[in-house]
């Protein structure tokens, strides 16, 4: 596998309560092998840097309009002609209002370790730690391997959120033993639908899951209590499949029952379900890729109840 060098990081969220047990600091890697139409972090899809434009912050000072390729269009509000923009990023320094920013900044292992040390007391109290998310952290196996080794040496628990669509290279396999828990996305059961909505088929995703479970690389927890790292310790990473509910795409009963039967076949007891969240639409807009067809509302109680029914028989980590 080609090592892609130093990855970019979109964001670090210091105290997430939604990305694994306890208080967790989440590192969002930039770049993903999939390209899901509903992606919650659209800024993390592309591996290369992008220009983020938050037009609502514009104070109309016009300090930015000396744009060399003349990609910035006079507002108000300010607009960027993405076809002309050559990503020179000069507008970032020119703008006093912070309208423009990089979509990612180079990852720095030492900075992450320093932050983890600062936050160690929160992790210890809460059974939390670091969560690697994205994008897809496993696109950068060498970097991630170095990072998780350092964190492990510091006694910091590491959780990873992965889409599963990466080859299980030796580097990737070397990472896994350093993880406490893996959230493993299973989005669509039908290969064609997966291809259509995620930009690639699901064969690799399902195959990897099978290999990890049947090869004994990971453990399947049977209840939420098993994830309490204040009480339990394991010699292998736990794996919890995660199903994002996207209205009309992944939440349809055929898909959920398809996923359910695949997971049950592997002996999965505990899953995590993520109801649809429409807040990503603004972020897509700021990257110049407006999501015209996106579902903009939150899921109704009915929709959630139907999903719950289709997934009967599993225990849920959080889905209520």
């Amino acid at each position, binding site marked *: 596998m080609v090592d892609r060098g130093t990855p970019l990081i979109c964001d670090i969220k*210091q105290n997430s*309560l939604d990305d694994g047990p306890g208080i967790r600091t989440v590192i969002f890697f930039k770049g993903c092998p999939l390209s899901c139409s509903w992606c919650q972090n659209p800024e993390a899809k592309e591996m290369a840097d992008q220009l983020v434009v938050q037009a609502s912050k514009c*104070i109309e000072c016009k300090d930015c309009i000396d744009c060399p390729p003349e990609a910035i269009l006079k507002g108000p509000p300010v607009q960027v002609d993405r076809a002309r923009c050559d990503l020179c990023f000069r507008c970032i320094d020119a703008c*006093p209002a912070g309208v423009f920013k990089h979509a990612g900044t180079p990852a720095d292992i030492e900075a992450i370790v320093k932050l983890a040390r600062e*936050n160690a007391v*929160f992790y210890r*109290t*809460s059974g939390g730690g670091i969560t690697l998310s994205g994008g897809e952290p496993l696109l950068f196996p060498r970097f991630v391997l170095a990072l998780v080794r350092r964190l492990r040496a510091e006694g910091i628990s590491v959780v990873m959120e992965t889409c599963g669509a990466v080859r299980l290279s030796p580097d990737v396999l070397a990472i896994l033993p350093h993880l406490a828990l893996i959230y493993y996305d299973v989005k669509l059961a039908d290969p064609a639908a997966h291809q259509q909505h995620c930009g690639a088929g699901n064969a690799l995703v399902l195959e990897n899951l099978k290999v990890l479970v049947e090869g004994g690389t990971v453990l399947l927890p049977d209840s939420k209590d098993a994830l309490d790292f204040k009480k339990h310790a394991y010699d292998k990473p736990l794996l919890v499949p995660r199903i994002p509910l996207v209205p009309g795409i992944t939440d349809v009963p055929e898909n959920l029952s398809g996923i359910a039967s695949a997971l049950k076949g592997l002996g999965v007891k505990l899953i995590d379900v993520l109801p649809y969240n429409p807040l990503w639409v603004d972020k897509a807009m700021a990257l110049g890729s407006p999501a015209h067809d996106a579902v903009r509302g939150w899921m109704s109680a009915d929709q959630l109840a139907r999903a719950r029914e289709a997934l009967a028989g599993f225990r849920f980590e959080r889905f209520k």
Partner: protein
Amino acid sequence: MASLLPFRIGLKLMGLAFGMSKNFRKEIFNPSVNYAFNNRIQIQTMDGTASIWIEFKDGRMRSGAGRIERPDLVLEYSTKDIMANAIKYTPDISLDLLLSGDLEFVGNMATLGKFSYLTTVFPKKVKRPLSLSFPPQTRITDEQAAMKKVDSEVLGCQVDAVKYLADPYLGKLSIADFPWLLERKNRFFSERAEVCTERAKNLTDFFVAEGFEKRKDGQPWDASLRNGLALKHVLSVKAPVIHDGDMLPGSTTSKRLGVQLFPEFGAVMLWPELHTVHARHLNPYLISEEDKSVLNDHVYPFWIDRNIREYTRKKYRNPLSQRFDDKFAYYFMWKTQAISHTIPNWESLLSKGIGGIVADIESKEKAAAGDGQKAFYAGAKASLEGVLAYARNLHEEAQRQVDELQGKNDPALAGAIEDLSRILRVLDVVPEHPARSFREAITSVWIVWVAMHNENMNAGLSLGRLDQVLYPYFERDMAAAPDGAARDAAIKEVIALIGAFYLKCGDHLPLVPNVGNKLFGGSSSDQALTLGGITPSGEDAVNDLTYMFLKVTEMLSIRDPNVNARYHVDKNSPEYVRRLLEVNVNTAATPSIHNDKVMIDTLVSRGFALEDARDWAATGCVEPTMAGRHFGHTNCMLCNLVAPLEVLMNDGRHPRFHYPINEDLTPAFTAANYPTFDALLGGYKSQLAFLIAKSIEINNMYGTVHQEIKPTPLLSSLIDGAIEHGRDLVHGSARYNSSGVALVALVDVVDSLMALKKVVYEWKKADLDQFKAVLDRDFTGEGDKAVLEHIKHVPKFGSNDPEVNALAKDLIAFMNDEYARTKNYRGGNYLVGFWSMSNHTAFGKLSGTMPSGRLRGKAFTPGITPAPGSSDQLLDNIKTVASIDAKQFPNNIAFNVKLVPGGGDTHEQTLDHFYDYARSYFDLGGLQMQFNVVTTAMMRDAMLHPESYRWLMVRISGYNAYFTELNKDMQVELIERMEFKA
């Protein structure tokens, strides 16, 4: 330009009215009570171009254009236009002018109050009917529980030092199990506050009869003896009130919810409002015509020169440091209102009884060295005799009620007779003799508490560690119970008694004049109660009573007492802190939680003995007092740390003052004078040192006046050291004699200095002159928004940025050092803390636009809480506050966190999250933390529908308030606080 003619005609008419109407004339001349308002008043513009004089002399009022010799009071208006309308101003408008700097006065503030009052008499300006925004409720449901999800965990094992409770959390009990408490709680929220003049009148009567400056026989008074005898009189004639169904006899005032008046302190502030206070928008008080007359004709005239503020003004000839205090914008000195931020020695009261304390005094008296000591002992004894007289009167009243009920021969009254008989049996013993049971102990505490609130203002007098103090008596009850069922019944009764005690603590309010409403407001009398922690010998002190107090705190969810919990990370159980957080979640605002281990280390580092430090308890808001042995006036002053910055930026002047603060010391605020950030920081520190020196100067002056006219003999009998030394506490006889300072708006100063450092000196986006011009325009000029945006990129206090933290630490150390330079007038140290009551709103309202980007008039941040937007990460806020060495906070801090449960979380998950944050903060060395668990949405709704939210309690900065009683600035400040999700 307006003509002054209407003003002059108005004054002439006023003068005529005094001449023609006997009734009006009585307002300024009343020979029957030997009263004459004889004053010369000069009214003029600040530039002196227009002037009018008024003279009141023996019932006549004259006025004219021009100047008058030797005026008693000078009123200066900023412009002729504003002055021309002065006759039309209500006291409320005059107050606004005073606060905005458009009106200045030189002279006696009480005289100003009386003059302001006179303008409300002609014509009567209040025609509004009595405002009844909150109609009395008769509902018996617990409205609060209905609107909030109150859930309670059960703990199936005994933890800490618990011996008797099978479930320390008492999770199965709710207020529904105590119908009497529920009924009283609902009644509590329907009470309307009423001014009580009983104490003020009786005190004044005593001094009129016996003399104040001298005895009636012309001999000099010893102030201790004089005040002891005065208190004895006040308590002896105080009405003994036992309300229908009371478990505890006695009441702070003669009203159900009384506003207690202290004319020797700030009660004259109500003078201008006598005719309007019943109808004011915020916190109206009922007041009878008779009480108005008692105050206007009798009480206030007597105290016009004898209250602490004016006595000091006269003695020290209106020093600059006092004139700063008059403006509320620079600092606020509490000694004009109270000195009682301390905690009595309850152990001594309960184990000896008042009789035992009197015996101690008598044995010391025999060896008394001089007249001073003898007089002190005589005064202390007199004050204690007053307490006993009051208790006897309560006994008589209970007996009278029993007799009356028995006379009715109605079997349905048997319960009521038994309740009263029980009170009688208790009063046979306490407070004179040692207590033998929990009921006797808490009754003794309550009666003495009432007496103390008739000696010292109901502001900050605090209860200490009642879970410790009362435990031996609870244990006696447990030992006396023959079986488990009797024990359970006794436990329930103790809980009911604690509930009765809480409700009693709310039976009075401190006087809040309208200036208080505008600037502060919502504060109760801040009777802090402290639970948990460790014992003086270092053992886990969390006992059955700790958990029972917590249960009552949760069931009642009321403002008083102000519950503080000590949490010792090594000695107390995790289950205990989890329960503290559960109570905080369920009540939304209380208790505040203190890191016991760190606090004890801090106190020891400041010279308190270890075993005393281990016995600390919160006072007023959060300030530590070594209970029963420390007279530490822990809230002697609140200082506005932004004011020195404003003075620096305005070349030695403050925009709210029409006279200079220190022009001679202050180079003009120009780029040339402050070429580097270090030069600017040095300039700020000089201003800060000036403020600190002035604040110490005036506090020591006020303290000296307290020594002259307001010794406090009852309090002195109840705090270790005074009896032993034969000197009142105000003379420094307690074992510890510090003074506590609250420094307000540290965060705004740090953020402002950082903004100057980065934007001006490092990024060079504007030079100092340009930056100042931007501030003067309040960011409204062309291109100013860009400067504001640069400011937004400056790292803020709360982002855990090392550079910001270093600046904050440097300033905090400087403040500690400056206050350490001078001793207080009792020989003790000044101890520094960072909490703000509601003064961050008050000071903010009176301050201009700041380099931090905070706009003119907006509230500062409360306590040491990072500003909203400093970081979107709660962890950064927590780490920042915890990073500062708590040894720099000997008078504590208030760190507010608005944290609300995540939407779908269970009660258990919510508590897990609160626990994780709080425990981590304490493990990092954080000193104090308090959660507001009210959503922004609910507070917005409460602004729209106050009638549905009377119970809604919020944490301001160190104390709790009912949201609907707060002024709008304060409400907005709470809403704008950063809301984090748990």
